[in-house]
């Protein structure tokens, strides 16, 4: 009858609705790309731009439908992963995630291995390998297993030794206990010094000023840029001889050694200059009064003082202010005047000013 048919049709329609509501199938033109380690899914399908242009709840509904479809696909993939029940039979279902595939930049550069210490270098050279030592040693006196070192060690506390033999060839009046204590202190100090030296070496090697990056970072200052520009110019096939210069760059090419090399006059050149030079030399040698080159004298004096100060401070840590600070701290010891004042004390032979400084 018609009523029965209508009911049947309605029931069928409702069942279809329920089926659609419960289905997990999603239709997509292009497959999504998944990175399950990051719980990430990328949908390459172009979204319906025209529909999304109009603002308001329609756009929200569309976005939500799109999100629902994509999430359904991602969750289906996640539920396909190998899963197990954590913590026994009644525990939650836990899936094993793979490694994240999407490459993301690191936070900090990877750690550099620390350079080997002096002992490690020596051991490698000689082929000495580490001997595995047991942590407990049998103590004959106490008849039990004691630690190798530390609290209640095997062999008793070495600082409470009640007997110290006088070694052959030692002074009989010498206090052996004091000697043992002093030697231990020295050993500890030497060990600490070596440890600090190794640390300093590692730190110096690790944070060596990196070479200026050859690409512009936007954070470089003028000198760095000049240096980098010079490197770039010199890296051409003809070592930069035919490179056009930048508008504000210096005209003549700077010397490769940075101006340190000695320059010699040509042999057969300026006769007048040679003549005047020789005559001046003769005059200085013949004069009775000593000739002094103030700049040179001051520099020599300062360098001597620095050397003395460095020798005195060898064991101690360097002061925070550094060389310049220490130099300025001492009263009235900077400048040409003091240097020149010191001159009469040193009997410099005449003509030293002309010669190269020893």
């Amino acid at each position: 009858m018609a009523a029965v048919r209508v009911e049947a049709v309605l029931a069928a329609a409702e069942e279809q609705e329920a089926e659609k509501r419960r289905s997990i199938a999603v239709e997509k033109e292009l497959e999504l790309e998944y990175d399950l380690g990051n719980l990430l899914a990328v949908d390459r399908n172009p979204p319906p731009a025209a529909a999304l242009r109009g603002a308001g709840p329609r756009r929200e509904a569309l976005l939500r439908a799109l999100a629902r479809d994509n999430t359904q696909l991602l969750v289906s993939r996640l539920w396909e992963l190998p899963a197990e029940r954590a913590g026994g039979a009644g525990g939650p279902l836990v899936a094993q995630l793979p490694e994240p595939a999407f490459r993301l930049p690191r936070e900090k550069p990877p750690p550099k291995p620390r350079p080997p210490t002096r002992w490690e270098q020596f051991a490698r050279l000689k082929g000495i390998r580490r001997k595995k030592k047991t942590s407990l040693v049998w103590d004959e006196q106490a008849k039990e297993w004691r630690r190798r070192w530390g609290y209640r060690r095997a062999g008793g506390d070495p600082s409470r030794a009640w007997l110290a033999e006088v070694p052959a060839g030692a002074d009989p009046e010498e206090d052996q206990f004091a000697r043992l204590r002093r030697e231990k202190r020295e050993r500890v100090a030497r060990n600490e010094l070596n440890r600090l030296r190794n640390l300093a070496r590692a730190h110096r090697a690790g944070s060596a000023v990196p070479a200026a990056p050859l690409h512009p970072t936007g954070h470089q200052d003028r000198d760095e840029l000049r240096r980098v520009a010079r490197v770039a110019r010199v890296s051409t096939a003809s070592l930069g001889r035919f490179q056009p210069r930048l508008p504000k760059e210096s005209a003549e090419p700077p010397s490769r050694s940075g101006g340190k090399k000695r320059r010699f006059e040509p042999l057969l050149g300026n006769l007048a200059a040679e003549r005047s030079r020789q005559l001046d030399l003769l005059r200085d040698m013949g004069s009775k009064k000593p000739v002094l080159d103030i700049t040179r004298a001051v520099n020599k004096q300062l360098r001597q003082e620095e050397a003395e100060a460095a020798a005195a401070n060898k064991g101690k840590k360097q002061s925070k202010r550094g060389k310049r600070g220490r130099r300025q701290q001492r009263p009235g010891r900077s400048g040409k005047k003091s240097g020149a004042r010191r001159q009469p004390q040193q009997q410099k032979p005449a003509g030293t000013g002309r010669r190269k400084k020893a």
Partner: protein
Amino acid sequence: MDALDRVVKPKTKRAKRFLEKREPKLNENTKNAMLIKGGNANLTVSEVLKDIYAVKKPFAVLYKRKNVTRPFEDQTSLEFFSKKSDCSLFLFGSHNKKRPNNLIIGRMFDYHVLDMIELGIEKFVSLKDIKNSKCPEGTKPMLIFAGDVFDVNEEYRRLKSLLIDFFRGPTVPSIRLAGLEYVLHFTAVDGKIYMRSYKVLLKKSGCKIPRIELEEMGPSLDLVMRRTHLASDDLYKLSLKQPKGLKPKKKKNISHDVFGTTYGRIHMQKQDLSKLQTRKMKGLKKRPAEKSAEDGGTAPKKSKSA
């Protein structure tokens, strides 16, 4: 910056642990984010920062005070903050007439700015405005990017990488399937980026895999891309470089073919063929008489001395 560059030798175990947590490692810590307000941040921008902080807790730091800086001109102040709080991601919010409701999202490499992208907020719906139950703090979100422009355009590609980095959360080896509650959906259409957060409801379906229903929760943003400051290609490549120790150790003598079959290779010693086990043919067995004749012929005669 001299004070920060000087090596601090730790005097206590706690200080030593603190420094060890911050030094570069093979497997890195989860990236922390710092959320900073600019000198002229308005209510919208502050609300956005607060909501993102709620999403990213506990791997985020929200600075309460306003900081007068311009990240695109001068990055030193940001780098100082990053060094102090050991954060490599940042979100800087500001507002002025030329750039209203401005949000700068960025990341650092070795405490120097790597990438920065400026986004404008067109519409913002906060966590408070949507009244329903939220998911617990610290849930790892699922991330979905829709739109082909995320792969075509270089700036959008970097933005995608930045957003994944920002919202990813800690890397975990396994995850509870019922706990997949939070999803962040980014759609790029028409020059705009729509970010929506939904709470996931798992409904019964006919089979094992549940049917998903979404409920809008959480902050939803309509963003438009403004300026960018992207790292140069080689700096970016340098930051992507992974140390050798992280590469999974290759098992030797195992190979796979196209069909998925695994082949193994076994190395054997040289076989002694005289001791080879073959089929025994009784008829060909040496008779004792023949054996002694052979031996007698070849072996030297032992002389018996009386």
